[in-house]
């Protein structure tokens, strides 16, 4: 009995204590001239999060006094958190919308979006009109576009996803007109769905698709408008369907945040960008250095 009592007291105490210290531990800044210190928190896009984590790790190695915590949760959360000042930097895998003009976007990489089909599918290319017809359920058999006699399973993304917006903008479609058979959340979910059903078609980040094809997943990227869907073509700007990966801040970020963003945009991290299957963007700041 007594021991339970004691345990309760201790745990309540511990709770209230940590509650008090929680805030003070967070602060810190880069005031002391040369060496950067302090803590940065990033939240947002699950697409950008792995890349940001890797860059943060390298940044921490260069500046041992700095701690960078990367959280995930979606582009919407990143933008909302950055706007409310809950975090220092938000991550978004799309450009800012007109009603987000109070924020500043800093592009750190680019990512193409490509159409994928199952590897066994014989169709080599789809025209713009064919894709639109497939996604609006006007065509629902592969034989109508030169393939086998097999029903088309349309894989689509959930509302609000950056890849979905890029897809809709590129093909000039409205989301309510689309008749999908499966709606997926994450890129890998889309890839696994297409890999699991022979008659399916979907669209994912080209980097993701390339990585999975490399790992032996039975999917294939379709060219778009005659341009092969490859990271190289996204980098050269030839491939038409792509999106920026952004870090988002309020107009006046802290010196530490500014320094980190500059680092993310520099050529020092291009190998990391490539290792996460994204496309580095050349920046004027690089040239200046």
């Amino acid at each position, binding site marked *: 009995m007594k021991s339970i009592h004691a345990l309760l007291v201790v745990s309540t105490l511990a709770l209230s204590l940590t509650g008090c210290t*929680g805030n003070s*531990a967070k602060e810190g800044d880069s005031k002391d001239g040369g060496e950067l210190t302090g803590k940065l*928190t990033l939240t947002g896009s699950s697409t950008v999060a*792995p890349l940001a984590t890797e860059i943060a790790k390298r940044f921490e190695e260069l500046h041992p006094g700095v701690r960078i915590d990367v959280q995930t949760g979606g582009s919407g959360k990143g933008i909302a958190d950055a706007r409310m000042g809950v975090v220092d930097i938000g991550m978004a895998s799309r450009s800012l919308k007109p009603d987000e003009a109070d924020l500043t976007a800093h592009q750190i990489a680019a990512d193409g979006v490509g159409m994928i089909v199952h590897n066994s599918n014989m169709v080599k290319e789809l025209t713009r009109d064919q894709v639109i017809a497939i996604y609006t359920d006007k065509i629902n058999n592969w034989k109508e576009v030169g393939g086998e006699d097999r029903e088309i399973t349309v894989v689509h993304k959930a509302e609000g996803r950056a890849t979905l917006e890029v897809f809709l903008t590129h093909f000039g479609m409205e989301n309510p007109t689309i008749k999908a058979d499966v709606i997926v959340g994450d890129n890998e979910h889309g890839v696994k769905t297409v890999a699991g059903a022979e008659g399916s078609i979907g669209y994912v980040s080209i980097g993701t698709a390339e990585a999975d094809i490399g*790992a032996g997943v039975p999917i294939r990227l379709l060219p778009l408008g005659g341009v092969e869907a490859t990271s190289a073509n996204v980098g050269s700007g030839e491939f038409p369907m792509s999106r920026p990966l952004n870090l988002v801040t309020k107009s006046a970020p802290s010196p530490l945040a500014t320094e980190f963003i500059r680092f993310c945009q520099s050529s020092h991290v291009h190998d990391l960008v490539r290792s996460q299957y994204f496309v580095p963007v050349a920046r004027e700041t690089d040239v200046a250095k």
Partner: protein
Amino acid sequence: MLGDNLPAPATNKVQRHQSREILTATAVWISAGLVIATLVWILTDIAVRGLAQVSLTFLTEEVKDAGRAGGIGPIILSTLLIVSVTLAVAIPLSLATAIALTERIGQDTWFARNVRRCLDVLAGVPSIVFGLFGNAFFAITLGLGYSILSGGLTLACMVLPILIRTSEQAIAAVPNEYRYAAAALGLGRTAALFRVILPAAAPALMAGVVLSIGRALAETAALIFTSGYVARAPESLLDSGRSLSVHIYDMSMNVPGGGSRAYATACVLVGLLLAINATTELLLRLAGLPTRTTSGGRT
């Protein structure tokens, strides 16, 4: 009760009873076999795809290249810390609640009924709502931030219904004779509870704890918004830390080419679960208690 079920002694029924016996036995064996077969199927699937990657370095090394290289050392540490926080809060809370519901208040009072209802509703809260609540309450309102503490406390709320329900049943399953005997010996209710009833209920209580640990280890959605995504070894309970299941989720659904690492992590998680189960059994044996709920039914 038993009187209604007395079989008529007529011999012409014997054959029908015999066939029913066989039928029931077959049905039970098939069902149990089906469950076990599916489970074995899932486990083999995980093992085949992941076990080859599991090694000592995988268990201890840091996460590299977004998880595609290196190991999961910091993630195992974070997971253990989160589960410890969860249990440290949930066990005393649920035990006390279960005691209040069984030993003190009786079944049909207004109080017990409503506490139970609340808990049943709590059991149905979607895990993602727990995550959002934990984020708003523990992380922001209480100022704990994305931290192991926030995550552990959120999970504690989440496993509470299971833990209370199993504790309640464990306590209720202790035969009343124990209580009468304790009373006859002049033990107060408190003394009887702590010296007689809880020890007798310990194995079943432990089964509840194991079930809750399983639930806590399995949780993803609630943790992404509370304990977070940082894959670095935590230095204190106020640091953010990624749990095994969040890592599995990230590897399988978010990181291209992370599939085999996801399966390897799942193997580790299953192994961890086995280790925890075995440890509880060992602890019970060391304490001189029966290791499992004695099957009252074995004839």
